[in-house]
Structure formats: structure tokens, C-alpha cells
């Protein structure tokens, strides 16, 4: 569509509220719905921080706090960080590999509506007494929890099935629908990230479904899987749960890393450093990620002899992550960096994620882990990796692809304000938690000993700053949607395929099916810089 068409084409809202099989519509449906759930999770987080600002129970009592804390965790993990990347993948995988749509369009729409149903059911569980066992829902506490726990488990099965459908779709599309010339070694690194993620979703999510079914049966049908008096085994639940949940944290970070690998070359006008090493590191992380789960159980009833093998695999997995970090640094080295908002968020990702990554190695060392397990040190580690890492990458992705999805440009200054507040807020909120954890503050407590007052006060102030940081972002998105100046098809002069078609892309993505003759980041070479698309002869000739 030419620029005039974008100006005049009414934004057809209705198709976003119906069963639509266009991968771009489903992508936007995912992005908007998950962002709403992010705000809900944020409100729950603010309730927790308000309660924890002062020692003593002043706002929520024990049961309410546990319900708020559980649903903060579940909403943020299962309804925001995992599905939002399904949104990016839905929108950009076909565009990046030169396909017209997903391999199974109807399965794609079904995956969105299953996710939506799962999200609403989880919200419903909140009013039925709410799950109050933390997102990990350890047995036997989750067996004696109020009714909302069963509904919560059902919603997780729905959301898990939705992400499974998504993964089947992404893998099939990437393998069988790449445009001519798009070999595996010419795939953009975001697509590599999605391959590694879909592999993990395919292999780990069904085991979570099994675990949840066992919990539901124990709660409803009277089976005795986890009833210790009848020979049940709570450690079995922990093994099943963490076999999914550790790969889940890689499902949450690998697409984010993919987005960072897309942004750095474009804004430093320099090819990615070590393309194959980054692609292989993603796969190494996803394969190794399936073998490390018991490092969450070092202090549990796990048979002590089992801890050392998992320490070894947990240590090894730090190496591919390190390779990616250093490759990114080498990418911007000697580059010509332009400080647009996506680039700043990507740089923010590096500095925040490195804190999370290093503390991860701390946690792999068993003696240190025994002291800080289930304390606020863990809360700080996970938030640096997930909030500092994945959410910075998501923000970077939203700003980077905003012109492509809407055809309009966002406001740079608002974007920079948003980054400033977000970056400072993250450090202010989560650094004090490292200290509180090591000094002896357990996790998931509604109240704490007086000695932790200042640290928690700092964290609450940081939380307030983070809450306010979403305002410039929302304002920026809404205003730019209406009045942002037109962005044209390739505002960042990127070389990946999605920038070679108009923004927003037409119904079938490309005027003529693209023919790929060079890699995704071949800057500098004459052929790379100019228009990539050579019109392939029409199929009929």
C-alpha cells in the first residue's frame, strides 16, 4: 500500500475482535491482549509492594497476600512473557522468511482464542478464593488450597495447549515455507530464537499438562499421587513441574535475545558478529535447558546425590549465554550506533541481563544456593533476567517494529523518557532485594522482620517508578497510532525481509514472492545496502 492508502485506509478495528486467520491480525491480537495482562500483573505487583513497604500487616492479610502474589506470578509468566513472544513470532516469522502466512492459519487463530479463554479462566479463579500457593503451586499445599486452585490449574492447561499449538505452527512454517534462497543459514536470528523456543515448548509443555492433571485429580477425584500418608511423593511433583518450568524461563528469554540480535546490526549499521555461533548457542541453550531443572530443588527433599549432576549442567549452560553476550558487544564494536529508542532498550537489556546472568552462576553453586534458595535473592535474580532482560527486549521489539505494524512513527523523546524511568526503576526495585535475600528475608512473605524495612522501602519506591514508567509508553503508542508521521516501508534501512514490503504489509505480505540472495545482515556490501528484492519471474513463465 502506498503512503496515501495508509492515510485513508480506515483502521478496520472489527477484524481484531473476530476469528481472523491473517497472521498479522493474530499477532496484534496477541500483543494487545498480553499487554493488558501485563498491566493487570503490574497492579498486583503494586499491591504487593504497598503491603511490603512497611513491616506489619496493614493492607492485605496472609490469605489475600498469597492470592495476590500467586496471581502476580502466574499472570506475568503465563499470560504476558510467554504469549507476547507468540505475538511477535506470529507477526514477523512469515514476513521474515518470505512466506504469505502461517502453515496452519486456522490452528493459529485457535491458539489465540485458547490463550484468551485460559487468561479469562485464570482471572475467574481469582474470585473463587484464588490460588494462593505461588505460581509454583507445590503440593501438598496446592491440594488443600481453595477451589480457585483447580480453576487456576485448568487455565494453565489451556494456556499451555495454546502455546503448544503456536509452537507447532511456528516450527512447520519455518521448515517448509521459506522463500526461495532463504536457506537456514540466511534466517534472521529472531527466527532462530523462535526455532529454539518452539523446540522447548513442544517438548516441555506436555509434561506440565501431565503434572497439572495429576494435581487436579488429587484435588477432585481423590487420587493419592501426592498424599504422603498413602505413599504419594511430593518430590515427583517438583520434578515434573520444574522439568517444564526451567525450559519455560528459556522460552521467555530466547525470543528476547532474538529481538536483540535483530536490533543491534540495524542501529550500528554493522553485520552481526558470529552469526552461526549465536544461532547454535540458541539451540545449545534450548537443548541444555532441558537437562538442568533440578537446580531449583537443591534444598528440597531431593536425594542429595542428585544435586551435583545438575550443578554441572547448570554451569555449562552459562557458556552459550556468555557467547551471545560477547557477540553482541562485538557487533556494536566499531559500529555507527544511532541512539533510537529500540537501540537504547537493547543496550539496557545487555547491562540488566548481565546482572541476572552472573547471579545465575551464583545460584548454580550448591553451597551458596542452599543459603539463598527461596529468599529475595532469587526474586531479584528472576526479575533482573525476566524484567530487566525479556521485558526490555519486548519494549525494544515494540518500538523497533512499531513503524512496520502501524505504518506510523512513534515519538522519540517519549520513548527515551520511558527508557530512563524503566531502567532506573528496575535497578532501584531489584538491587535491594539481592541484599535482603542474603541477609535473611525469605520469599513470598506478607510481613518481615524490622531489620529489612529500608530495603523494602527502596524496592517499593522503585516499584512506583516502574508503574509510572508505563504511562509515557501508553501515551506514546496511542497518540502515534492516530497522529504519528508516516514511517514508510523501511525507516531503519534494515535488510531483513519484513522491511522490504510496505508497512503495514499487504494481506499476502509481498507484492511478488521474494528471492533472497544475501544474508539478513549483509551491511556494507553494495548489494546488501540497496533494495534487496529482485522480482522473481512469475510462477507461470
Amino acid at each position, binding site marked *: 500500500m502506498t503512503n496515501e492508502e495508509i492515510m485513508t485506509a480506515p483502521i478496520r478495528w472489527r477484524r481484531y475482535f473476530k476469528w481472523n486467520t491473517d497472521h498479522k491480525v493474530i499477532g496484534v491480537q496477541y500483543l494487545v491482549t498480553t499487554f493488558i495482562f501485563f498491566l493487570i500483573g503490574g497492579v498486583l505487583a503494586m499491591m504487593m509492594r504497598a503491603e511490603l513497604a512497611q513491616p506489619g500487616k496493614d493492607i492485605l492479610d496472609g490469605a489475600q497476600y498469597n492470592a495476590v502474589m500467586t496471581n502476580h506470578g502466574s499472570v506475568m509468566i503465563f499470560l504476558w512473557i510467554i504469549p507476547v513472544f507468540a505475538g511477535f513470532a506470529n507477526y514477523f516469522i512469515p514476513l521474515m*522468511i518470505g*512466506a*504469505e502466512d502461517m*502453515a*496452519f492459519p486456522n*490452528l493459529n487463530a485457535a491458539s489465540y482464542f485458547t490463550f484468551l479463554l485460559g487468561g479469562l479462566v485464570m482471572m475467574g479463579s481469582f474470585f473463587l478464593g484464588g490460588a494462593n500457593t505461588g505460581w509454583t503451586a507445590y503440593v501438598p499445599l496446592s491440594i488443600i488450597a481453595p477451589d480457585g486452585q483447580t480453576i487456576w490449574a485448568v487455565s494453565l492447561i489451556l494456556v499451555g495447549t495454546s502455546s*503448544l499449538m503456536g*509452537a*507447532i*505452527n511456528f*516450527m*512447520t*512454517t*519455518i*521448515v*517448509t*515455507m*521459506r*522463500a*526461495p*534462497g*532463504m*536457506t537456514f543459514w*540466511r534466517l534472521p536470528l529472531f527466527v532462530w530464537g523462535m526455532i529454539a523456543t518452539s523446540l522447548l515448548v*513442544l*517438548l*516441555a*509443555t*506436555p*509434561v506440565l*499438562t*501431565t*503434572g497439572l*492433571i*495429576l494435581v487436579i*485429580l488429587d484435588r477432585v*477425584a*481423590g*487420587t*493419592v*499421587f501426592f498424599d504422603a500418608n*498413602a*505413599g*504419594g*511423593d511430593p518430590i*515427583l511433583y517438583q520434578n*515434573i513441574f520444574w522439568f517444564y518450568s526451567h525450559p519455560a524461563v528459556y522460552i521467555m528469554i530466547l525470543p528476547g535475545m532474538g529481538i536483540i540480535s535483530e536490533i543491534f546490526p540495524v542501529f550500528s549499521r554493522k553485520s552481526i558478529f558470529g552469526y552461526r555461533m549465536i544461532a547454535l548457542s540458541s539451540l545449545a541453550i534450548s537443548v541444555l535447558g532441558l537437562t538442568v531443572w533440578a537446580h531449583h530443588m537443591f534444598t528440597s527433599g531431593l536425594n542429595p546425590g542428585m544435586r551435583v549432576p545438575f550443578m554441572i549442567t547448570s554451569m555449562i549452560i552459562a557458556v552459550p549465554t556468555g557467547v551471545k553476550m560477547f557477540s553482541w558487544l562485538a557487533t556494536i564494536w566499531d559500529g555507527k550506533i544511532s541512539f533510537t529508542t529500540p537501540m537504547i532498550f537493547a543496550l539496557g537489556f545487555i547491562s540488566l541481563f548481565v546482572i541476572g546472568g552472573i547471579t545465575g552462576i551464583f545460584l548454580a553453586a550448591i553451597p551458596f544456593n542452599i543459603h539463598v534458595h527461596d529468599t529475595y535473592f532469587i526474586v531479584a535474580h528472576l526479575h533482573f533476567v525476566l524484567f530487566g532482560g525479556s521485558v526490555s527486549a519486548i519494549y525494544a521489539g515494540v518500538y523497533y517494529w512499531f513503524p512496520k505494524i502501524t505504518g506510523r512513527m512513534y515519538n522519540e523523546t517519549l520513548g527515551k523518557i520511558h527508557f530512563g524511568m524503566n531502567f532506573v526503576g528496575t535497578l532501584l526495585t531489584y538491587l535491594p532485594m539481592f541484599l535482603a535475600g542474603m541477609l535473611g528475608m525469605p520469599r513470598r512473605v506478607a510481613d518481615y522482620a524490622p531489620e529489612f524495612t529500608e530495603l523494602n522501602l527502596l524496592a517499593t519506591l522503585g516499584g512506583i517508578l516502574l508503574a509510572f514508567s508505563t504511562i509515557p509508553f501508553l501515551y506514546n503508542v496511542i497518540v502515534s497510532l492516530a497522529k504519528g508521521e508516516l514511517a514508510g516501508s523501511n525507516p531503519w534501512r534494515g535488510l531483513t525481509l519484513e522491511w522490504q514490503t510496505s508497512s503495514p504489509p499487504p494481506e499476502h505480505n509481498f507484492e511478488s*514472492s521474494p*528471492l*533472497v*540472495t544475501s544474508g539478513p545482515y549483509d551491511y556494507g556490501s553494495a548489494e546488501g545496502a540497496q533494495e534487496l528484492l529482485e522480482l*522473481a*519471474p512469475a*510462477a507461470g*513463465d
Partner: protein
Amino acid sequence: MGSQTSALKDHFRAGGELGINHIKLGMWFFIASEVMFFGGLIATFLNFKINSPTLEGELLDVTLVGINTFILLGSSFAVVLGLDAIRQDKPRQLAFYLGITIVLGVIFLSGQVFEFRSLAAEGLTLTSSVFGSSFFTMTSFHGLHVLIGVLWASRNFIKTLRGGYSSSTSIGIELFGIYWHFVDIVWIILFTVIYLI
């Protein structure tokens, strides 16, 4: 989206030219996730069987279940003959084999129900013990998959009678075949894990 007649003769191969049918690939990815789903259930069963063994194992009647295994093997055989028939453009023979599959599937399910009832009579139920819980959960989920297979076979049966399948459009039967054989392999593993070991 047939394979692209691209002028470019170099060895860069597009997805379409890999010779992989994308529907079948999607089915195989689904089978991979089903392997892990049953994997979780079998790991649970084995965990209880090894870590907290009980005497209820003796209640199980291997010969009855052995016959059931034959029945499921037979139905797998019928399905593969049906697929072979449709590839020879013989829809009537496919319908016949699908009919056999449905009948054998129903016999298998009734065999399972019979076995469950006889075990319940001897006090082994879903809630009686850890062995009972894990045994019934695992076999019931497998039974559910057999039921879904029988319903899918009936739909295919009707579609075949209406001439829905021919030698060039037999992908639906191939998918059903992959699913049915997978359910049969799961039963073989269950048969070994529960009754033989």
C-alpha cells in the same frame, strides 16, 4: 503454494523444495508433544512402581490384556492396509478396513472397561492406592486417545463412502494412520511397563 519454479539454479533450497509435506510435519510435531505427555504419565507410574512397590501388581491378568494387545495390533494392521488400498484408488477397500479398525477399537475399549471393572471388584480403584491412581490415570488417558481415534476413524469412514478420498488426496488417511500407530506404540510401552516388568 506449490514448489516454486525458480529461475535460480544454485543449490539454495527453499522450504517448498525440501519435499516435506507441511501437514504431515505438523502432525509429527504434535506426536512429539504427545510422546512427552505420555512420558510424564509413564514416569509417574514407574516412579511409584519402583520407589513404593505394592502387591497389587499380582491382581493384573496378563492373558486378557495380551489379547487386547493383539486386537490393537490388528487394528493398526487394518489401518495400514487401508492406506495402501486408497493409494491404489480403491475407496471401497479403504472403507472396509476403516470399518475393521472401528470394530477392533471398540472391542479394545470394552476389554479395558471389563478389566477395570474386574480390578475394582478386587478392591483396586483409582483412589485405593498409589498404584491404583497411577495405573488407572495412565490407562484411562490411553483409552481416551483410543476413543478419539475411533471417532476420527468413523468420520474418515463416512468421508470415504462419500468419495472424499482418492489416491492423490489421501493425506487425511496418512495423518490418521500416524496418530493410530502412535497410540498403538504407546499401548505396547504401557503393556510392557505395567504387565510384563
